[in-house]
């Protein structure tokens, strides 16, 4: 079972089998809330499903000491591998999903996902990158009256769960003759959006649509507000 799984998935790290749930019981990781979790997902608990562990990830340092513990409540929820390696071990992603791009006045917009495929219920991320021409900026919030701040909108769809976007810090900015302080982005702006695709097996491929709005200005002039829509295709990872 495990050997076939490892071969199919190209897994190079060891997969261990805790027969009889001995080790997870000793470690206190046996899921005692399984029936309740199943009820939350509207599925009955079958006998073979007892004896599973809480979805837990332990990050060990060189001495075997626990540096981090990452536990999800529901057995279905998972952190994606790319995010896990980056957050837990500081290992940058060797690759990500294919990049979609669009040109808007003074700003090139691109977007990609951690991977071109999704695993149902697994947390993954979308990335939106704005490359702003030198000497130009786009607005964060608060925004001066009449200007358009940078906004990202992900089109809602059934099963698509969208988390809070993570924006980089914006630079405080004063406009001549105005008292208020505003915030702008310059250079390259990388926004990360956590998502999960919570669908039934066999749902098929998913298209995530992101609309990016912004308005580029420099010290003397502004471009009209512009909008770009990017489509990111995510293929369903087939069951093992």
């Amino acid at each position, binding site marked *: *079972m*495990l*050997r076939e*799984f*490892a071969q199919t998935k190209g897994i190079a790290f*060891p*997969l*261990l*089998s*805790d*027969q009889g749930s001995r*080790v*997870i019981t*000793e*470690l*206190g*990781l046996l899921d*005692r*809330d399984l029936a*309740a979790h199943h009820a939350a997902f509207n599925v009955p608990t079958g006998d073979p*499903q007892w004896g*599973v*562990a*809480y*979805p*837990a*990830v*332990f*990050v*060990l*340092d*060189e*001495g*075997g*000491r*626990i*540096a*981090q*513990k990452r*536990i*999800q*409540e529901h*057995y279905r929820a998972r952190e994606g591998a790319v995010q*896990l*390696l980056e957050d*837990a*071990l500081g290992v940058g992603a060797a690759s990500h999903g294919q990049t979609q791009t669009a040109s808007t006045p003074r700003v090139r917009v691109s977007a990609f996902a951690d991977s071109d495929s999704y695993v149902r219920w697994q947390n993954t991320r979308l990335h939106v990158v704005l490359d702003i021409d030198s000497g130009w900026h786009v607005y964060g919030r608060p925004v001066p009256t009449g200007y358009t701040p940078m906004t990202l909108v992900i089109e809602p769809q059934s099963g698509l769960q969208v988390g809070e976007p993570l924006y980089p810090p914006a630079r405080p900015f004063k406009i001549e003759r105005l008292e208020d302080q505003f915030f702008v982005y310059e250079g390259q702006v990388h926004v990360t959006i956590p998502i999960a695709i919570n669908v039934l097996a066999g749902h098929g491929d998913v298209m995530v649509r992101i609309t990016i709005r912004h308005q580029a200005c420099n010290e003397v002039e502004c471009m009209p507000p512009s909008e770009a829509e990017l489509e990111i295709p995510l293929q369903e990872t087939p069951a*093992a």
Partner: protein
Amino acid sequence: MTTVDYAEIGPAVGGIFPDFELPDANGSQLSLNGWRAGRRALVVFYRSARW
């Protein structure tokens, strides 16, 4: 439903993770610390390769 504080499940942060030995995909016994050999590691508990 029992009430569980998910942060409290399993060995605590800051402690040494207990070593264990389990069969790998080829049936050979593998111990956590033997395999780690002084390297950092992620120990991931997953429900099943089947479902």
